[in-house]
């Protein structure tokens, strides 16, 4: 599996584990991961620290153990707040107020993009 995709998947799995646990150390989070994502201790620790840097987890030291906890709930994670905010706005107003990484897509563009995404993953994975 290409490295980029693995990292993205593992981050999502770690977040899901954190929501189930509420709080926990590296070993507890690692045990909570599905078997195919249960990598080395240091891999899980790296992902946890990366999620702390990104603002999704908080970290605190309890005696000799570092405990991680989610900074946002699963419900907040699933809320499509930005799309809902601009649901009623015209196309021009929406674009002026929110320059998003991609514009809107139709079905043809989407299937072409999915094909291209697989090529890019292969290209990046082979480096």
């Amino acid at each position, binding site marked *: 599996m290409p490295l*980029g995709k693995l990292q993205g998947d593992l981050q999502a799995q770690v977040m899901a584990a954190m929501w189930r646990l509420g709080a926990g150390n590296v070993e507890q989070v690692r045990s909570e991961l599905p078997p195919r994502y249960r990598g080395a201790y240091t891999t899980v620790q790296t992902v946890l620290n990366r*999620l702390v*840097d990104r603002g999704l987890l908080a970290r605190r030291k309890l005696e000799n153990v570092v405990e991680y906890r989610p*900074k946002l709930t699963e419900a907040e994670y699933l*809320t499509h707040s930005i799309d809902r905010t601009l649901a009623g706005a015209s196309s021009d107003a929406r674009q002026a107020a929110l320059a*998003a990484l*991609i514009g809107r897509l139709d079905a043809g563009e989407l299937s072409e993009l999915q094909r*291209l995404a697989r090529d890019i993953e292969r290209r990046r994975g082979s480096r």
Partner: protein
Amino acid sequence: MSYAIAAGIATGIALPHLLRLERAPPTSAALLWFQSLALRALASLFAAVYLLVYVPSAEPFHGLAHRCLHAALPVLTEHLGLETHDVGHLATALPALLLGVSTLSVAIGIARAARSVRRLLTLNGLGPGPRGSVIVGGADVVLAAAGIRRPTVVVSAGALTALDDDELFAGLDHENGHIARRHGYVFAIAALLRGLGRPIPGARRALRELSFHLERDADRWALARHNDPSALASAICKAAGTRELEPAWLTGLASAGVMQRLDQLLDPAQSALKRARRLALNGLAVTMAVFALAVTAVLPATAAAGIEQLGTKTAPPHCES
């Protein structure tokens, strides 16, 4: 002189439609589309003022308005007691009125959308994200420069889990590019100009093309900060993969050439223009921008002089019904 200005305006409006600009330097291409929108707006405004001010004072208008409206609208002129010239004046004022309403509705829409985004960030921001961004809810991959006056990069929680480091930082730099290059202001002004220039065909395409080149400009900004082009392309693909499809009629309005951007990111050598052509396009863009500015400066003065000249003439006799 006025014919030369009119020919220049027509050229400026049509030029970006005739040139192949998809691989042109993004700033020059954006400038060419922006001046096309500005000249459209000026031409529409001038036409509206001409109808509102000059036409009613012209001799043929009195005869035409009197005869035609009496014959065509006897209900209005006889039963409702409306003067024929009142109806005629209303007809000449209508385009200006429609232009005003169109522009005002665009301005109100943009102000509302900007306020909604600001409120969302203040009330629903989930905390600070990487590189000064604000985290918002959503499992889909969203990276955006939000707001016009005080723009902020927003990143969805889904983007923070789905993207690897290279993709995330390339995407964040792309959005920071929009902010650093003041694209929010450029697009908002262009949208207002489109509201004014709506009567001249092609305004919608001009705005869509401008948006495409602003996106390319932000891509370049990100790549200039040592980001990997394929990481940015991958972030774009992931963002696209998690988006819900929009209705086809809406897609046509806002899609900003994602496939072309990806082609250019993944094959920059193929997308590069020859130096001479690049320089020629840069020169053309600057020339047309200067011309648009000059016309903007000259037209109001010309119109004011014309109105003043009309004021010195005797008022036309009011027709009798």
